[in-house]
């Protein structure tokens, strides 16, 4: 097809349309209209032919005109007008203005992936050999004719090489993003017209981080990619991704999400196993490909166990005939915190819900439940307090007291029992401190408690109507939503099918409360009420730094009283709900790592946020990190304040030894300790290259698209050199390309005239 259009497609994509004659376009449009009108007059205007029948001659002009407007006449008029219009268009000299690199004045960087995965053998040739062959035969000769070409090898970084022989697949890792960002920095003084990357896209991170992509885009250099390697898997199973919360508290129930991909084993059963520190904690039988689950992830629940830094490992048992077993296992770290988060539950009147929630949490070792119950108008009954003075004067009135809790549950308490400043404090508790708020239904809860008009209404995951009388003591069954089926909170038993059945078997709630619609972004896990008039029962969302939830009932105690005493449905529900409430609630000193598992590289940054008891940033803290290395040696380093981020401290380092590093962060203000945090990360060498044995086409295509380049397959190799000419980076000049001489136009003219001639012959007269 290219001969019809004379130039490569990229010229049309990048070029700007112009008329080279310099005559105005409006004149062209006018002329086309005039010519069409003349043709119309000639074809449709009635003739005064005396030979016509008298009946016709006596008709009005309009009727005679209508007689001439036959389909045949219309077709001929269109053909003639198109022909004349096209001729006029060509007379105006249409052309394309395109920006092209100046010959021999620009540099083209050719990057060849030097990582181990490029030694994968496909159809008798390694990927690297394919890349070298394509370069030598199809790309480099033509590129060198036009530009200065510089060769680089890409692995853990980017390195200039004299010739292709220096690229031998020796690099243990592949960090495409870092390499390209480094190239962009190193060549900042050079007129780089474009980058050509030959790779299988096997990046150790699996993606290019946005900040690196931004650094590459900032140079405005198009990165063209030539994808090497097969795009579909052949007889291989891979744990493509493993996700689990990086930190949790002891004995919490966690969920691991595992994405498995396969080639050649579709429909075969496989066993997915989860291990924590080498001990099997869960497993699941799956069917490959056919059982990828929602969004392609398999979800498995497992217990986090006692406190400590643990290695979570997801693996697929080897399948007979699977040659590559190096990608059947993935690991990540889970830091299990020894500190128990505390949850404060405020109840405005004695009711059974409090008793049974307390019972559920008494047997839970992951968090502490503190309850305050208004037994009489002036008396508060406190349980679970750490010392006699705790909550002695009632609900906290200052941030230091409330923010010491990670979660807050408000039962059937009228909103005006709280002072306006306490309501504000509760809002800050969620928004700024990052705590979790759960509000329960009740005769003085939610709308009936007057919360629709309080400052708390806007942080809840559902809207609250202003009308009272939303509370009903008519027993009603809870219904699990699609979201609820996926959530760990409502996972009362591990098996999803059994879980659904169990929810159907649970006794009706003793009471429930109607609430409004869920807010955008909120999740509704349970509903209640008659079919067709359901209302959210359990809804949750993130708000500010924290999270909020509504459980619109005070009657879940029936799930305990109406089932066998050994049944755990009620207890599991409340444990999981309250754990969710405090998961991620930050502590005064909380630390994040840039990465937890370092694959073949050692760069990691540690960022610590330090807050005082009022949760205000501490800017004058001394923050130190004591690091215990895999060989047992320990070092102590100081974290530096991050400019412009009050209360944030950062430490970057490179860790060469493979194994687990345990870091204890301590923040002090003078001699007083503000708090401490412990976490860990792990370096693994020689693992990454076992993964991603198929070409990561998505990564390469995405990289090209985002930088203004093109993705090519090996079959397109011969086009690359010419198409790279058209770039806006480097030293460029504007080139114009005539369009009037395109064969497609002449073909079109011939077709129009030929059609008219053929039709006239066939139809004779009109």
């Amino acid at each position, binding site marked *: 097809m290219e001969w019809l259009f004379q130039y490569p497609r990229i010229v049309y994509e990048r070029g700007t349309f112009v008329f080279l004659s310099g005559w105005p376009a409006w004149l062209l449009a006018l002329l086309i209209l005039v010519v069409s009108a003349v043709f119309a007059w000639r074809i449709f205007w009635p003739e005064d032919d005396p030979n016509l029948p008298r009946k016709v001659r006596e008709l009005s002009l309009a009727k005679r005109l209508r007689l001439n407007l036959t389909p045949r006449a219309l077709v001929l008029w269109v053909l003639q007008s198109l022909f004349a219009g096209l001729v006029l268009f060509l007379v105006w000299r249409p052309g394309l203005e395109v920006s092209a690199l100046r010959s021999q004045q620009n540099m083209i960087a050719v990057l060849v992936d030097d990582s181990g995965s490029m030694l994968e053998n496909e159809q008798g040739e390694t990927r690297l050999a394919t890349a070298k062959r394509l370069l030598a035969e199809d790309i480099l000769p033509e590129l060198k004719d036009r530009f200065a070409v510089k060769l680089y090898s890409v692995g853990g970084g980017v390195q200039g090489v004299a010739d292709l022989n220096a690229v031998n697949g020796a690099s243990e890792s592949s960090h495409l993003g870092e390499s390209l960002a480094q190239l962009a920095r190193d060549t900042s003084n050079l007129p780089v017209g474009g980058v050509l990357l030959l790779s299988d896209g096997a990046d150790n991170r699996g993606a290019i981080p946005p900040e690196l992509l931004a650094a590459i885009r900032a140079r405005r250099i198009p990165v063209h990619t030539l994808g090497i390697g097969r795009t579909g898997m052949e007889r291989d199973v891979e744990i493509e991704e493993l996700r689990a919360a990086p930190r949790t508290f002891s004995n919490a129930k966690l969920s691991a999400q595992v994405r498995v991909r396969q080639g050649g084993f579709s429909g075969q059963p496989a066993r997915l196993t989860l291990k924590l520190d080498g001990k099997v904690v869960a497993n699941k039988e799956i069917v490959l490909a056919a059982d990828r689950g929602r969004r392609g992830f398999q979800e498995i629940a497992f217990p986090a166990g006692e406190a400590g830094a643990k290695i979570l490992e997801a693996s697929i048992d080897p399948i007979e005939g699977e040659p590559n077993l190096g990608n059947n296992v993935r690991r990540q770290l889970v830091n299990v915190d020894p500190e128990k988060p505390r949850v404060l539950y405020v109840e405005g*009147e*004695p009711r059974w819900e409090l008793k049974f929630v*307390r019972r559920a949490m008494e047997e839970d070792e992951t968090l502490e439940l503190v309850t305050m119950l*208004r037994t009489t108008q002036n008396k508060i009954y406190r349980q679970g307090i750490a010392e006699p003075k705790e909550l002695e004067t009632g609900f906290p009135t200052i941030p230091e007291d409330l923010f010491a809790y990670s979660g807050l549950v408000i039962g059937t308490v009228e909103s005006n029992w709280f002072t306006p400043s306490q309501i504000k404090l509760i809002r800050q508790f969620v928004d700024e401190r990052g705590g979790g708020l759960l509000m329960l239904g009740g005769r003085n809860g939610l709308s009936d408690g007057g919360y629709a008009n309080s400052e708390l209404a806007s942080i809840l995951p559902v809207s609250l109507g202003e009308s009272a009388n939303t509370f009903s003591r008519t027993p009603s069954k809870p219904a699990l939503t699609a979201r609820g089926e996926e959530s760990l909170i409502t996972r009362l038993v591990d098996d999803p099918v059994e879980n659904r059945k169990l929810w159907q078997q649970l006794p009706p709630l*003793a009471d429930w409360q109607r609430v409004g619609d869920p807010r955008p972004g909120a999740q509704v896990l349970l509903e209640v009420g008659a079919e067709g008039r359901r209302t959210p029962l359990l809804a949750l969302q993130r708000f500010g730094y924290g999270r909020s939830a509504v459980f619109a009932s005070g009657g879940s105690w029936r799930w*305990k*009283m109406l*089932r066998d*005493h050994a049944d755990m449905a009620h207890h599991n529900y409340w444990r999981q709900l309250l754990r969710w409430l405090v998961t991620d609630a930050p502590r005064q000193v909380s630390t994040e790592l840039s990465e937890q598992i370092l694959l073949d590289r050692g760069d990691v940054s540690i960022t610590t946020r330090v807050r005082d008891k009022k949760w205000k940033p501490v800017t004058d803290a001394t923050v130190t990190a004591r690091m215990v290395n895999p060989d047992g040696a320990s070092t102590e380093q100081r974290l530096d304040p991050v400019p412009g981020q009050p209360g944030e401290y950062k430490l970057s380092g490179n860790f060469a030894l493979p194994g687990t590093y345990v870091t204890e962060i301590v923040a002090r203000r003078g001699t007083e300790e503000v708090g401490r945090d412990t976490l860990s990360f792990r370096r693994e060498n020689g693992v990454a290259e076992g993964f991603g044995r198929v070409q990561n086409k998505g990564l390469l295509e995405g990289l090209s698209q985002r930088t203004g380049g093109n993705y090519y397959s090996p079959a397109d190799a011969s086009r690359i050199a010419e198409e790279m000419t058209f770039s806006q980076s480097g030293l460029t000049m504007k080139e114009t390309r005539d369009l009037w001489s395109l064969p497609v136009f002449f073909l079109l003219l011939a077709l129009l005239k030929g059609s008219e001639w053929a039709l006239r012959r066939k139809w004779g007269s009109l």
Partner: protein
Amino acid sequence: MGLKRLSRLHVRSMEEVVSLDDDRIFDYPWVYAVEVGHWELDDSQAARLREYLLRGGFLMVDDFHGSQDWQIFAEGIAKVFPDRPIVDIPDADAINHAVFDIEDRFQIPGIQFLYTGRESEYDGYDPHWRGVYDDKGRMMVAICHNSDLGDAWEHADEPQYPEKWTSRAYRMTLNYIVYAMTH
């Protein structure tokens, strides 16, 4: 009415009578039984009461007097919990402090006091405040032996019935109920 006035308990104006054989008993996690010196629990009823209590139900027994009543009651409880003892409730137990701090527990006679002038019935001269606890130390059965708290509530408006017994009966009961609703 007394409970409503003294506390924030949301209670019905009239009692709800349920039988141990009725499934509705599980809808009432607190039950009050009187004259349990005359109860006769068969095996299925004993098993049912055990299940009720293990699920989290609470039983308060009252208005049974003397050693014979006690023996019959204790035999019934032994059927329910063969391996759990009936123990005296210590003064420091949370049940004596849930709403009111009550340590000097005295006998609360029934309305018969007005006719006989006796504070006790049969040979039940001394009040006993006892309980049965679960494995986690939570009381499941509260036993008021040789007292009649029920009469003290019922006859609160009887001018001749001493106010101090009514007042104490209400306070103790409120403690028992709030305890049952929090433990």
